């Protein structure tokens, strides 16, 4: 067994010193997992690039106990409507705010269908013990991934969404994750989403930074999608260059369930997405897509793992990236088809557009197929803008700069097309175009609740 790296003990010490404070407001069922997580973390530590899954993103330099921690800092002291002012008239969503990983009470606007619960994980975990007992830490690999272990040790608050059987939440549930404060900060946010049988929901995570401080985020989202249920999930990441975010998204799908998950990394420092889905019921359908637009020294690493555990399921995966300057990226697409998972359809592709000689991309498909009657495909491309297309556009009078933007947008378009909600699709389309024109304001990422008071919210 590899001995835990020196720097990790600082986080263990922090945990032991603060454990009583972390556990004070938490459900006993959540607290039960901390010891197990601590044991795992002692073995796993923060992954360096020597860990195969983290080969292209070394997290060790960033995750140390040197930052203020959100449970003691407790994030934000003021009132949310002093930072964000939403025009309620135009708000076509259930919008809730999280500041530094903590749920802000009273921010839930619209009336929800009966029985649907959206709110603070810390609060609701205490009320809904049955759900916690059934799903908490059962979907994310607590003992296998050092980052999940770390999150489970420190887990305190986050978003809790429960859609009971047969309920349909028509308006999107928007979670605006805000990072703010004068001090550098570490956040371990923990979210749980449960969509019961034949229920439907659309969940949108928007990740922002409001101050220049360094933010180190390690969030874990577990989502259970029961039989014939439907979840549309979107993550729009628009954070400043000093942000390091590890986002773990762990989905468990039952039979005939449908998941659409879309990841848009518009601006960030270092981003690592762990996107895991287990297809555990026949005829489950899984569509995951991602678009990353990066420049300067930004780094994005999408690691996906689709586990076809049973027969007759389908998965489609498409990740695309446009990379400028000295940005670096990585993509891993692991697909596991279990021995009995016959008639599996699993498709995957990753395409990258490198705009400079200094941009770098590492892409690796990893298919492990143990069944013999399957259709699987994977493809990866890394290329430059097409000179012929560029000339064709210019020969019609379109400037070189404009032709460049058109072609980059054309490349990204396929991913934007995957968005199921027309209003959101249009807004993302505009954001992407702004990003290519260098006009993207980080405030813009609050896409549904777009009416923000400019004086109250300062973006960096």
């Amino acid at each position: 067994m590899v001995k835990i790296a020196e720097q990790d003990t600082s986080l263990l010490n922090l945990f032991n010193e603060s454990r009583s404070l972390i556990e004070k407001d938490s459900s006993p069922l959540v607290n039960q997992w901390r010891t197990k997580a601590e044991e795992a973390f002692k073995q796993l530590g923060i992954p360096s690039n020597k860990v195969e899954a983290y080969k292209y993103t070394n997290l060790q330099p960033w995750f140390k106990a040197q930052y203020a921690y959100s449970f003691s800092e407790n994030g934000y002291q003021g009132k949310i409507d002093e930072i964000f002012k939403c025009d309620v008239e135009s708000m076509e969503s259930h919008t809730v705010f999280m500041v530094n990983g903590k749920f802000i009470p009273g921010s839930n606007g619209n009336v929800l269908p009966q029985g649907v619960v959206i709110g603070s994980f810390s609060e609701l975990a205490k009320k809904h013990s049955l759900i916690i007992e059934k799903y908490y830490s059962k979907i994310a690999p607590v003992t296998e991934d050092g980052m999940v272990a770390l999150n489970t040790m420190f887990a305190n608050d986050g978003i809790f969404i429960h859609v009971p059987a047969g309920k349909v939440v028509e308006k999107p549930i928007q979670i605006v994750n805000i990072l703010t404060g004068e001090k550098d900060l570490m956040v371990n946010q923990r979210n749980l989403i449960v969509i019961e049988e034949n229920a439907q929901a659309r969940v949108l995570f928007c990740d922002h930074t409001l101050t220049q401080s360094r933010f180190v985020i390690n969030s874990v989202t577990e989502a259970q999608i029961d039989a014939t249920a439907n979840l549309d999930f979107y993550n729009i990441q628009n954070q400043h260059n000093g942000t390091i975010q590890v986002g773990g998204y762990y989905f468990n799908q039952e039979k005939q369930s449908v998941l659409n998950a879309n990841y848009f990394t518009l601006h960030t420092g270092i981003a690592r997405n762990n996107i895991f889905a287990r297809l555990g019921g026949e005829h489950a359908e899984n569509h995951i897509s991602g678009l990353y637009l990066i420049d300067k020294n930004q780094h994005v690493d999408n690691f996906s793992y689709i586990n076809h555990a049973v027969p007759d399921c389908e998965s489609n995966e498409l990740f695309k990236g446009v990379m400028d300057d000295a940005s670096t990226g990585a993509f891993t697409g692991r697909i596991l088809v279990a021995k009995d998972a016959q008639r599996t359809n699993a498709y995957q592709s990753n395409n990258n557009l490198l705009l400079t000689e200094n941009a770098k991309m590492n892409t690796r498909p990893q298919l492990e197929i143990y069944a013999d009657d399957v259709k699987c495909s994977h493809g990866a491309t890394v290329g430059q803008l097409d000179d012929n297309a560029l000339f064709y556009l210019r020969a019609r009078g379109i400037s070189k700069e404009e032709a460049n933007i058109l072609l980059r947008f054309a490349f990204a378009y396929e991913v934007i097309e995957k968005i199921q909600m027309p209003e959101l699709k249009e807004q993302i389309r505009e954001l992407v175009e702004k990003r290519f024109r260098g006009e993207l304001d980080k405030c813009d990422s609050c896409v549904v609740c777009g009416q923000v008071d400019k004086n109250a919210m300062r973006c960096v």
Partner: protein
Amino acid sequence: MLKIKDLHAKIDGKEILRGINLEVKAGEIHAIMGPNGSGKSTLAAVLTGNEAFEVNEGEVEFNGEDLLDMAPEDRAREGLFLSFQYPVEIPGVSMTNFMRTALNEQKKHKGEEPLSASDFLKLMRDRKKLVDIDSDLTNRSVNEGFSGGEKKKNEIFQMAMLDPKLAILDETDSGLDIDALRIVANGVNKLKRSDNATILITHYQRLLDYIEPDYVHVLYKGRIVKSAGKELARELEEKGYDWIKKEFEE
């Protein structure tokens, strides 16, 4: 309108154009014919500013300005149009967006106001009717999944939209079935005016049954070796290019 003087151009160090002289005036249609590899497409590429080719000698004047000094987009904005021999597929860019961007950039260059959405759509409808193309084509991405004939028709549609002073049609006829050829030729004829001009680059005489040229030039080994009226095209059709090759073999 266009004056080409002793134009030499090369690609990868190999000289393809070896002293072209040509003058095109407003209201004229010129046909440039010649065997494969004679430099016909290179001439079109050099005139529109394809950076793969290097001009090592000569000059080209377009409406009194130095054409070779301009970027490809500025040549287009000054009224030069190339119908590509191989139009490029651009998935993700809609025909509508493409044409609107192109048209408005050209308008901006002339100091005119951009077209409103409704005026633009009206113009598109008119032009589609004029060149007789399926309205379906403009709802798709630029050339994506178009057949060879559809691509060529789409070039003529773009020409109708942008209304150039000088259009160069680079083998727009090759591979076209007779119906598509008629549509293309019709489009060119309808767009012809006394203040614009056309250069048809073609290997075959057939297109010239539908579009009547004022002059026919034969390009061979990077030079124009023969110029005459439209009767030259018929002669080439009957005798082939071998007699030209024999006559001008070095």
